[in-house]
Every structure is written in C-alpha cells, then in structure tokens.
C-alpha cells in the first residue's frame, strides 16, 4: 500500500488513519536510498514526493525553508543562482534525493569536511509525530537555543520517530573556485599519517577523501575552495606540504576545474559504488581505520569496495548483497567486533542499523515519547 499525501495536514491524516488500519508506515522521498525507503511486507509506504517546493528563501539571511519532499538538486540550483550552497554536499542528488531523506538518513557528502554535516545546518523542522500531530521544532534563524533541539534529534532518525514535512536550513556563500590535489601513497599507514597531519594544519580543506588504488596503494583527494585569486598559491602550498621531504606521498597531481567539479560530482552521486552493491555508512576516526581494513582484508570471497571521507571520519562500504538472510549478518558481526556502528543506505530492505548501538537505552525512551503506538518502524 502506498499513501501519497499532498500537504503536511494530509501526512497527519495518513498517520492517524494508519492507526485504524493497523499498518506501520515508512516514509519515502525520492527513493534514492532504497535500503531505507523500500517497505517490507505489511508496511505501508508514505510517499512524500508530493510535498515539494521551496517556501521561503532569503539569501541575505543564509536560510531557506522547503517542504521535505523537495529534491536536493532543485534546491542546489536555486541556491547557486545566488552564489550559495548546502556545504555538507548532500549525497545522491542526481538520483533524486530529497531534503527530508537527506536529513533522515544523515546523508552527508564529502563537503562535510569543511563546515560540518546536515546536523550543523538544519535550523528548524516541522514533522508529524506518531500521534499524527503536526509539530515544529527549532526556529528559522541561524542562532537559537529555545526548547529541546528536535531538528537535531531527527537527523539520522530514518523515518522511525516522525515524518519530516518541512525543513529550514542554514546555507553559506559558495566558494568561488575549487581545485583538488590527488596524492598517491604506497600504503595505508603513510596516507593516514598525512590525513592526521592535514587535520592539524591550518590548511582549510573542503573535502579530504581516501580511497584504495591498485593492490596496496591509496589515493588521498584533498579539495580546496575559496577566492579565485588566492587558490593557485594555496594549492601550491598544499602540494608542497604533502610532498615535503620525509612525507609519505609519492606523487601529487592537481585536478583543476572543470575536472575537479566532475570528480566530486561522481563522489556525491556515489558513482564509485558497483551496481547491485549495498552501501553502508560507518562512522569512525582515522585511528580505527587500520583495524577495519585488516578485517576486510581477511574476508573470504568478499571484495568490499570502500572510501573514507571527511578526513577519515566516515567509511563508506560497498558491500556485496549475499544470498544469506539477512544479507547484513556477516557485516553486522564484523562491526560489533570492532565496536563500530553502521547504517545501510543502498541495498534491499531488511535490517539497516548494523553493529553496536550504545545510545539505544535513551533512543528507546525518545521513541516511546514520539511514537508511543509504534506507527513507524522500530529504531
């Protein structure tokens, strides 16, 4: 069953109606993250693509408000007309990702390196709770400390606490120009050493991604953005920094516009993920990457494609969908061993929260408060 509300009020009615029908609801935006939006047997899909449109955009305030089903790509175009952008680089915009899905999945792209993730740019949210009430949290201004920060709570809530219907974001002026340095390393240790070195340096990177290259090599992608006149000197400095004697980089190549833009569009669109693979987000820190790499290397018959983003703060793992049921069992166990957690974005429906979940005791109480009758799926 699919419900297609056309207004926030209709979302409320749909949630209240679901109570009578005894069905549980799973919100869906653009469907770009199928692991999170494909309903299993007996679950009704709440299609929010009808809730689309930018309601307010005040470039001088650095804010806009839009319905949750609005596509990220449409918003990005609108912001670009005024030289602004969503600095956390929402993922999967070309595939139809919506603002609501981006918030609910916490789907930050490589740009989260510079100014933060969606949690840092979400100012206000209207949502429908499990009782079908239309609720607002936060305020449409860039600074606010009134009441509980419900918008932040809903980041990452994957449609299981409430249905997002309207969102207000902070935006920033977009960098005038970008360039990227691609540095090659013989091994992981050398590459990670430079990730740490860069993180402590005054160099302000817009993205810092790490990716395996060949059998044992690694590529570090470091992106700079800012005023066009300052960029050549900055990229030279970054190059000198990475190629300084004693450093681990073997070579470093500048990727200038327009190749730079194409390169990062492919990353934001997850073009590197092989077709048919699931994609799992795993928050970590650079220090925990070697242990994860060691475990992945020991897997039999599984070649996990992966990419580390935001200076080694998140691993994106393209995982083969096994015939086993559930397909996530092996990865779930691996993450538990490493005391890591994960969230599947791409892949078949099924368990999407993997590994450890230390926040569960508090999350359960919050779930009871927002969705006491379990109209939405379990957390």
């Amino acid at each position, binding site marked *: 069953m699919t419900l297609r509300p056309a207004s926030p009020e209709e979302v409320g009615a749909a949630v209240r109606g679901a109570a009578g029908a005894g069905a549980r609801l799973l919100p869906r935006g653009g469907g770009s993250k199928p692991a999170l939006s494909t309903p299993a047997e007996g679950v009704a899909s709440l299609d929010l693509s009808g809730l689309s449109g930018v309601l307010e955009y005040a470039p*001088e*305030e*650095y*804010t806009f408000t839009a319905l949750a089903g609005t596509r990220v790509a449409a918003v990005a175009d609108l912001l670009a007309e005024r030289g602004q952008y969503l600095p956390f680089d929402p993922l999967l915009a070309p595939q139809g990702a919506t603002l609501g899905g981006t918030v609910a999945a*916490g789907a*930050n792209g490589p740009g*989260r390196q510079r100014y*933060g993730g969606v949690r840092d740019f979400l100012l206000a949210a209207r949502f429908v709770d499990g009782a079908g009430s*239309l*609720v*607002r*949290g936060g*305020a*449409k*201004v*860039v*600074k*606010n*400390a*009134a*009441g*509980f*920060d*419900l*918008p*932040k*709570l*809903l*980041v*990452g*809530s*994957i449609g299981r*606490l409430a249905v997002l219907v309207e969102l207000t974001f902070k935006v*920033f*002026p*977009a960098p*005038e120009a970008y360039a990227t340095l691609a540095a090659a390393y013989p091994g992981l240790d050398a590459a990670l050493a430079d990730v740490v070195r860069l993180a*402590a340096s*005054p160099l*302000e990177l817009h993205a810092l991604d790490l990716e395996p290259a060949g059998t044992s090599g690694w590529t570090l992608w470091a992106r700079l953005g*800012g*005023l066009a*006149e*300052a960029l050549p*000197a*900055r990229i030279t400095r970054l190059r000198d920094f990475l190629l300084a004697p004693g450093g681990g980089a073997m070579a470093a190549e500048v990727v200038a516009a327009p190749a730079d833009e194409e390169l990062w569009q492919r990353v934001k669109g997850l073009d590197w993920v092989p077709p048919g693979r699931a994609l799992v987000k795993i*928050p*970590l*820190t*650079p220090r925990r990457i070697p242990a994860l790499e060691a475990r992945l290397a020991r897997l039999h018959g599984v070649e996990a494609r992966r990419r580390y983003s*935001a200076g080694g703060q*998140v691993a994106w793992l393209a995982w083969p969908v096994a015939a086993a049921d559930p397909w996530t069992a092996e990865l779930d166990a691996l993450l538990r061993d490493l005391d890591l957690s*994960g*969230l599947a974005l791409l892949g078949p429906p099924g368990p999407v929260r993997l590994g450890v979940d230390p*926040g569960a*005791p508090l999350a359960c109480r*919050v779930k009871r*408060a*927002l969705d006491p009758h379990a109209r939405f799926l379990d*957390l």
Partner: protein
Amino acid sequence: MEARAFLTSLAGIYPPPRMLWRPAELAPYESDALTAFRARPRAVVLPETPDEVVATVRLCHRAGVPFVARGSGTSLSGGSLPIEDGLVIGLNRLNRILRLDPAERLAVVEPGVVNLEVSKAAAPHGLYYAPDPSSQSVCTLGGNVAFNSGGAHCLKYGMTSNHVLGLKAVLPDGEVVQLGSESLEGVGPDLVGLFVGSEGLLGVALEITLRLLPKPELYRTVLAAYDSLGAAGDAVARVVASGLLPGAMEIMDRLAIEAAEAAVHAGYPREAAALLIVELDGEATQVEAEFTRLLEVIRASGAYEVRVAVDEAERLRIWKGRKSAFSAVGRLSPDYIVNDGVVPRSQLGRALSEIERLGAAHRLRVANVFHAGDGNLHPLILYDGRESGALARAEALAGEILRLCIRLGGSITGEHGVGMEKREYLPEMFSDADMAVMKNIRNAIDPQELANRGKMFPGGEAPALLHSGPHPLEREGRISRE
C-alpha cells in the same frame, strides 16, 4: 523518604566538607548570574568522581528530591538556580581533562572543566576549542552543554552543539548512557543533539567528548564607525551579500561605546552612533584576499571612519572594548537585564528602532551590543532596583522585546537558554503540540521531573523575585553577561 533520612543517606556518599547544608554555607549557591532570582536549596554536594554523581542522582530518584547540576553558576537565564528545598550538585571539582588527543583532534573532559582550559591545554598542539562565550574564563563545559552556549563566532563555527561529539550522562533515574562517539559522523537519531541544550532536564553529563579545531592561521579585523545604527546594520547586510563569511560581526551602539570607553579605553571613536567590528579568520592567503574585498565593502558602506587592526595588540584592543561592554554598561546603572532574542538579520534595523521606542515608553535606557552576524540581539535594559517599580518595568520591557523577536520571525533566546527567566515565553514561540512533544520527551526520561525542575517549561513553583546587584564574580570583573 523523610528529609532527615535523605540527608543521612547523602552523608553516606559525601564527607562533611563536601556536603553543605547550614544556611551560611548555602547562601553562595542561592542564585546564579541572573541575580533577580534566589532560592534556598536543601543541601549542596560537591562530588569528586562521576560515581558520586551517579549515586547522588540515584538517591534523589529514590527519595523524589529534585536536583540541579551546577558549574560556575554563570547562567544568565537562571538555569542553574536551585530548586527550593532541592539538591544542588556542584560539579566544579569534576574538572579533569581526561584525554587530549591531538591526532584525533578531540578532548574528553569532565563537566566541571572551565571552557578556556580546554583551549589552553590544546594550544601546544596548535588546536583550540571554538565556542567562546564571554564568560569562558569561568564557565564550565557541563553548563555549556546544558545550555548550548554560543559566543561571538557562531555564524561560521556554530554553537556548543556543533562541537560535542559524544557524551556519557546519567539520566534522572540513575541510568548511565553513552551518546554519540568520537567521530564527527553518526548513525541513528542524533541523541547528542537532543541532550545538548536540554537545560539540565534530561540528566547530568559526566564525560564530554569535544571536537578541537586547528587555530586559524590569520585573523584580520576591522572596526568601522557609523553615524547611525541603521547604517551599521546595512553594512552587515552588504558584507553578507558580498559572499564573505566572517568569523565574527559585532555591533555596539552609542551607550555601549560610551560605557566601554569609560571602562577600558579601547580607543573607540567616541562620537560614533554605532561601531561595527568584522573579523575574518582562516588560511593566510585566503584571508588576505578576503580582507581586501571586505575593506572595499566597508568603505562603500558609509562608514565615516575605518580602522584596520595592524597587529595583534590592536586587534585585542578592539575586542577588549567589545568583550567588556556588558560589565562596562553595569557602571552606567546599578542594575540591568540582558536580553538574548534573535531576529532575522534583515529585521535588525526594525528590531533596534522598535527597542528604542519601547525603551522610551517604559522610561528606561537600553544599550545594544550584539552579534550582528547571526541576528542575536543583546539589549541591556538599565534600571535601578532601589527605585520602586523599576524592576517590574524592566521585566515588562524585556518581555515586550522577546515578543517582538517572536513577531519578527526569530527566537526568544540565541545562546542563554530559557531557564527560569523566559519560561513563560516559550509557549508564545511554540504551539501546544510543539510543547506537548517536548514535555513527552521529558516525561519519558524523567516522569518525576526531578532534573532541574521548574526550568524551561512554564508553571511549577516560582521562587521569590528579588532585586539585587550584580553577581559577585561580575563585580570582580571576572565574568560578563553576554
């Protein structure tokens, strides 16, 4: 549990020097930096370990005794005011930096660690902790977390919430939970985001994992003088429209300039109707290029005087005047109330002229010092508490300013929190349904309403409203109300 039995149980946790219950010992804890409120707690305990905090919260839960966790008591919203006959858990002795990890750029601290101490400890590694409330030399991280404290750099760098990675906390029923992690990223509902800014209602933070940032390589600061407040406000709009992202944009009006000059001789142009301070920070080459553009914008904005800080000493002098403005205004008047409303930046001019009109109507002087970059107003309402009815007039004016902020599409608080001061106004900003959800969350975590009872939500017992002078620390010039 009877009162005597509760104190006996408490004495089982704390040796006598760390458990205060005699009236004279309790007096210093009766109020926080919002001195208009005062309440007498039953006792104050001074834990030295997280286990003692947990045991105390569990005891309160069993006995049904409400408690307030308190750091240095610099809350401007009455957030750390004791609950009448409740317990104060003073966390200043939990002041260890448990871990400083420069490679992972994080620090794990106890809640009683003073904000500035984190940056001091991180400095040898070229790192710092970004949120900088003006009381940062005394205020503690536990309080910063509870109230999502801000500072002068929020537009670019965010508030406390944007810098907390993980938390270990004890919930009001004594359950200890771990929220977040050491990563900037997370999966699942953002529980750290919920806890930060919950004003102590959801429990007590025991360990806080903070994100550290590399110190900006270069700061470039400019001071511009205008002959009207409106012109300074327009200049802010021009800077924003230029595509620059300053680390700070601050405005002071005539009364605030006068006060700052009298107090610290910052060398401000005294005759100015408004001063604008704009600061850029970041990578040197980038900042130099941006500063050239900034100066073009400022010069075209109608400023009659533009001063560029040529060295660090001059930069610090510019900031000294700004940072001391609040306590300096205290010299102009025996008492004042600090307001903390937020309006959309485009409404700044309208808000300021309306505040001027309201002040005149109430026969009260109002000084304005504010974070213009994020629309966070700090009108200082001057009054003399010895004058009959003056406090009531000041409070009425403060309330009208809050309503003005709501009407203009903003918020009743940018960084001080709702606390005791603004709890009657929260329902004016939020609907019944919004309030119900917040209450439901609290109820699911603390059905007895033990943790910081009486704050944030309207109703509950109201303590006596008293006039009194500034906070003792403020009198000493160690904290300011910002």
